[in-house]
């Protein structure tokens, strides 16, 4: 137990924070422990948390995708525009919307790998560009009146009391977990994040891994856009705006290094639970959304700062081998 905590310091911190949050929440509101609240917790953020999972891969790989929220808007806009024309089966419109997201990811992945550009810059262009594309499609309209089944898609229970969206999320999470930590692909994601050159010299198909990750990111963002549309029942050009910061915050809070190469799915899941619970608790205490975001911002900084200061206090002297060559 202690050994585990020493090895997984970040996760241990998060477990403590999460436990504290839950205790406070329970004492705060009798509704907190209800099943309905639990389902709501996830359902109300479903479009964010599924993207968080893919973003974990992208950041461990040493890249970043700032465009996810705009791609969400773009995909939803494609779907809504096709549906609005009325000539296409709605299911097909949904599919094309998601494919549009995948293509957006593909485009960015190709530009990043072909030209060797920093993903921060390319996806910043994507952030602005795909949001623009969503506005081109929808201008300032709001498209709604989707079929009834679509608006219920998430809440529909699959088996027992579990809604479809929730089941899908947990299945997807399990899969992602296995891929990241048990598969060859996951291993490659870490190695590339450590050093793309080492990976390339070891015969790993670096560019292909990167492109696949950006396609995955685009596809899931597309799916998230569609789910968002289903949840709120309407699509506007601004759908999902500024979500990228929330999503990246959750990944970083999970202990994933912004420089790539390290981080764990457990950490990200704990961060995700923590953020959702804090928001939920603050919500129950009638604290508004902006303040909730501020609290999470504080937590993000604190989670890196506190261990840093503690380490500096404990070891005024660096280990001999680790410092032998100075910082990379």
């Amino acid at each position, binding site marked *: 137990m202690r050994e585990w905590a020493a090895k997984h310091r970040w996760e241990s911190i998060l477990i403590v924070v999460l436990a504290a949050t839950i205790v406070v929440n329970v004492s705060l509101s009798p509704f907190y422990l209800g099943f309905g609240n639990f389902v709501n917790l996830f359902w109300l953020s479903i479009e964010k948390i599924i993207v968080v999972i893919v973003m974990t891969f992208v950041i461990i790989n040493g890249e970043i995708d700032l465009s996810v929220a705009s791609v969400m808007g773009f995909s939803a806009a494609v779907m809504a525009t096709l549906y609005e024309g009325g000539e296409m089966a709605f299911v097909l419109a949904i599919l094309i919307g998601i494919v549009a997201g995948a293509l957006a990811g593909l485009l960015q992945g190709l530009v990043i790998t072909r030209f060797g550009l*920093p993903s921060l810059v390319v996806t910043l262009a994507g952030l602005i560009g795909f*949001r623009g594309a969503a506005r081109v499609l929808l201008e300032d309209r709001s498209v709604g009146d989707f079929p009834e089944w679509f608006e219920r898609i998430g809440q529909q229970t699959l088996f027992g009391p579990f809604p479809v969206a929730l089941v899908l999320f947990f299945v997807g999470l399990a899969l992602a977990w296995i891929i990241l930590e048990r598969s060859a692909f996951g291993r490659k994601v870490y190695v590339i994040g450590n050093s793309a050159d080492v990976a*390339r010299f070891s015969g790993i198909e670096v560019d292909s891994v990167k492109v696949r990750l950006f396609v995955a990111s685009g596809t899931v963002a597309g799916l998230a856009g569609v789910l968002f549309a289903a949840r709120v029942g309407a699509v506007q050009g601004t759908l999902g705006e500024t979500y990228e910061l929330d999503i990246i915050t959750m990944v970083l809070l999970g202990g994933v290094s912004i420089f790539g190469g390290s981080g764990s799915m457990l950490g990200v899941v704990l961060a995700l639970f923590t953020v959702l619970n804090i928001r939920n608790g603050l919500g129950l205490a009638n604290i508004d959304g902006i303040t909730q975001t*501020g609290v999470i*911002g504080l937590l993000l900084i604190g989670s890196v700062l506190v261990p*840093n200061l503690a380490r500096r206090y404990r070891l005024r002297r660096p280990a001999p081998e680790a410092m032998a060559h100075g910082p990379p």
Partner: protein
Amino acid sequence: MTESAAEAAPKSTRFLRPERVKEATLLAIIAVSVLVFAFLIEGYLSGRFFNRVTTSVVVVTLLAAAQALVIFSRNIDLSVGSIVGVAAYLTGDFLAATGQGPITAVLVAIVVGAVLGSVNGLLVAYGGVPAIIVTLGTLALFRTLLSIYSEGANVLAGDLPSWVLEFNNVTLFTIAGFQVRLVFLIAVFVVVGLQFALARLRWGRRIYAIGSNPSAAAQAGLPTASLVFWSFVGSGALAGLAGFMFLARAGTISATAGAGLELESVAAAVVGGVSILGGSGTMVGAFLGAVFIDTLKLSLVRVPEVSEFWRDAFLGILILAAVILDTVLRNRFNRRWSAEARKAMESTGPSAVGMARMAGGGGGTADA
């Protein structure tokens, strides 16, 4: 080895500095686009349009400068939009209560910005937290503090001293309908001053040195922590000044004022040739980047064939084009100079740049 050891200062025409090439390229692109717009839009090349651009570009210019200042040292400041909001709101509140004049107001805005910037700087330079994490956090945090402080109320234009709303239109002199306004002149003055400081002051060169190779900077004994700290304070102060300009332009300020400007400022700097990996770029470049983006924004809406909704889509493509061009230029320059260095060193070795190229180019953001 020849005997002609260069005793005198070498001649200065042997090569072009890459940053000058970038600036010239951007200037040419701006000129061409203005000509294209002049062709598409009737009465485009008028004093009125010049006045609009020079007024509206002020906020983004100051923010691009703020952003560039920290990017040079291989950091980033995602909180500038929130700083603009806080500075604009607090300054507005202060003016509404006291009715003070412009100099005091500008000082208040700058101090507010510098204080917030120092929070970022403290955490990055002395707390050892990566800038992107710190400023992602303070982006939210500053906004939250503002929202709590404002209690949902806005600063109203009507409560401000009358000089505030006229400030934007103060014209120093007019040449053939082209008004040179005070706010634009302030922005230009700031850019030129910073450009000078970064090129000529030891402090400025050291900022570049840190961004170019942080561990070497520490090894060379540069006070890296304090340099990074002060660059964040400077960035905050510039964002504070931008906050004042924002107030002067908008008049009414809500708790969400300035949201989204952080990414626009990064975009302007990057289009202006500031390398996101630190160590290279110029203030003039960042300024040109801001001017270019703003010109496009204001012009596209006037092209009858183009729906106003195309603006951002177009902007995305543009940013991409700018960075691709930048990379191509940089590679070409490095290759040429690498070849020269090989000759100069007589015995050739695979240069750092050459190796990177052989290894297949950029390692993405983890390149540090």
